């Protein structure tokens, strides 16, 4: 009897807010690992057109001949898309629960944070910041992957696509805004994901926050270096 009750309780707990945010943490982790790999690829631009285009071409050859041409890339794409959808679904479900837990009619007349404003800002903008990042990802894929949006001219060479685009100031500006949004999202997100997965322990919080700060800053800066180098003519 007791065991069957517990089994029922366990399956209920799979729908709990803790389970939802764990799904968010794991999928967010996958996306962060992808970002790091993506950033590494971007920095290849400093090796010149040949190195960059070779790298980009080689991604399609991973696992050959075990996998068909582009097979590994499609596996990565499917995993990333699934992660993104699960991440967004969990975010939406948690948002809806929070909304219900304190409806608009019950909002405080005066609201003040008891924490430092910058950290609070990062935590507070997770939901809308996430939406902005998602919209940016669509824009970014249309721009540099499918080349449907081609400011500065479309090209078959990934290197040329990159250089053509980032010679225009407003393209760089749009990426700057998006990457700052990504940076803020990761600043709270990385800490939150680690805490959610149970890594936070007494005396460890500062270290975890430091890791989140360093990784978020490294990703933001690492992604911004190529566009700005192109804009200022260091890469052409």
């Amino acid at each position: 009897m007791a065991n069957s009750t517990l089994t029922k309780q366990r399956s209920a707990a799979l729908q709990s807010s803790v389970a939802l945010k764990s799904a968010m943490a794991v999928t967010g982790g996958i996306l962060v690992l992808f970002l790091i790999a993506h950033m590494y690829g971007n920095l290849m631009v400093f090796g010149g057109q040949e190195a960059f285009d070779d790298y980009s071409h080689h991604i399609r050859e991973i696992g050959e001949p075990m996998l068909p041409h582009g097979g590994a890339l499609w596996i990565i794409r499917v995993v990333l898309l699934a992660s993104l959808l699960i991440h967004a679904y969990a975010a939406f479900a948690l948002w809806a629960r929070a909304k219900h837990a304190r409806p608009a009619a019950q909002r405080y007349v005066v609201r003040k944070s008891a924490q430092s404003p910058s950290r609070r800002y990062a935590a507070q903008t997770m939901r809308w910041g996430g939406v902005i990042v998602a919209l940016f990802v669509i824009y970014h894929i249309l721009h540099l992957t499918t080349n449907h949006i081609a400011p500065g001219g479309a090209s078959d060479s990934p290197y040329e696509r990159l250089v053509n685009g980032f010679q225009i100031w407003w393209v760089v500006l749009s990426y700057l805004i998006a990457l700052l949004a990504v940076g803020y999202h990761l600043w709270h997100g990385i800490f939150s994901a680690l805490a959610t997965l149970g890594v936070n322990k007494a005396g460890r919080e500062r270290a975890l926050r430091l890791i989140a700060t360093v990784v978020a800053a490294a990703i933001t800066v690492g992604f911004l270096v190529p566009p700005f180098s192109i804009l200022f003519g260091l890469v052409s």
Partner: protein
Amino acid sequence: MNITLRVWRQKSRDVEGRMVTYEIEDVSPDMSFLEMLDVLNEKLTLQGEEPVAFDHDCREGICGACGVVIDGVAHGPETTTTCQLHMRSFSDGDVITVEPWRATAFPVVKDLVVDRGAFDRIIQAGGYISAPTGTAPDAHAMPVPKSDADRAFDAATCIGCGACVAACPNASGMLFTAAKVTHLGMLPQGQPEREARVVKMVNQHDEEEFGGCTNIGECAAVCPKGIPLDTISQLNRDLLGSLTSASSE
């Protein structure tokens, strides 16, 4: 000190409430916040008006009965309970806004009093140990490492005031639940029911319509007992462990 108070007035659970402004003169800086409310209530009673209802009991900061949101912060500008907050934390001429805890799980009963029965039901779901009663066991019969005992004790200092829920942008009760899970989970007596406890308590927490935790940390920042945010991480670890373990049945 002269203080202008904006207080939430609500006759009963189903009646709509509103903010009402009162002027209070000759407030001593040595008064506690609740004593200042007492002065207001005496004045209101003499005027034939209904006094402002608020929860309070020990007025020593140990029972967890009192608690209101003062100028947007649960328990006000000092990290303590409302009863231990003194008027010296404010200045002459201040306009102070006083609101009840706001959460679906904590419905307003009257004015500043909310029903925190949801916390009791979370405890009933698993916040206890099933132990045979009798004479107290010898203190050294069951050794507990000092660091574990300290952490259990720190978590056990939670007085269930509900400030964590009031401060949380998601109206989550996770810090309260985590304090209880950590308190019992650190001690040998809590081990037999550890996996079942966290599952039942988290389910009850969600059933009471609290929001989910997003690790913002407002709860720990206002907690009068300093319950650390990492207790929530410990709860998560326990729950994920319980959900993934097959051998526990």
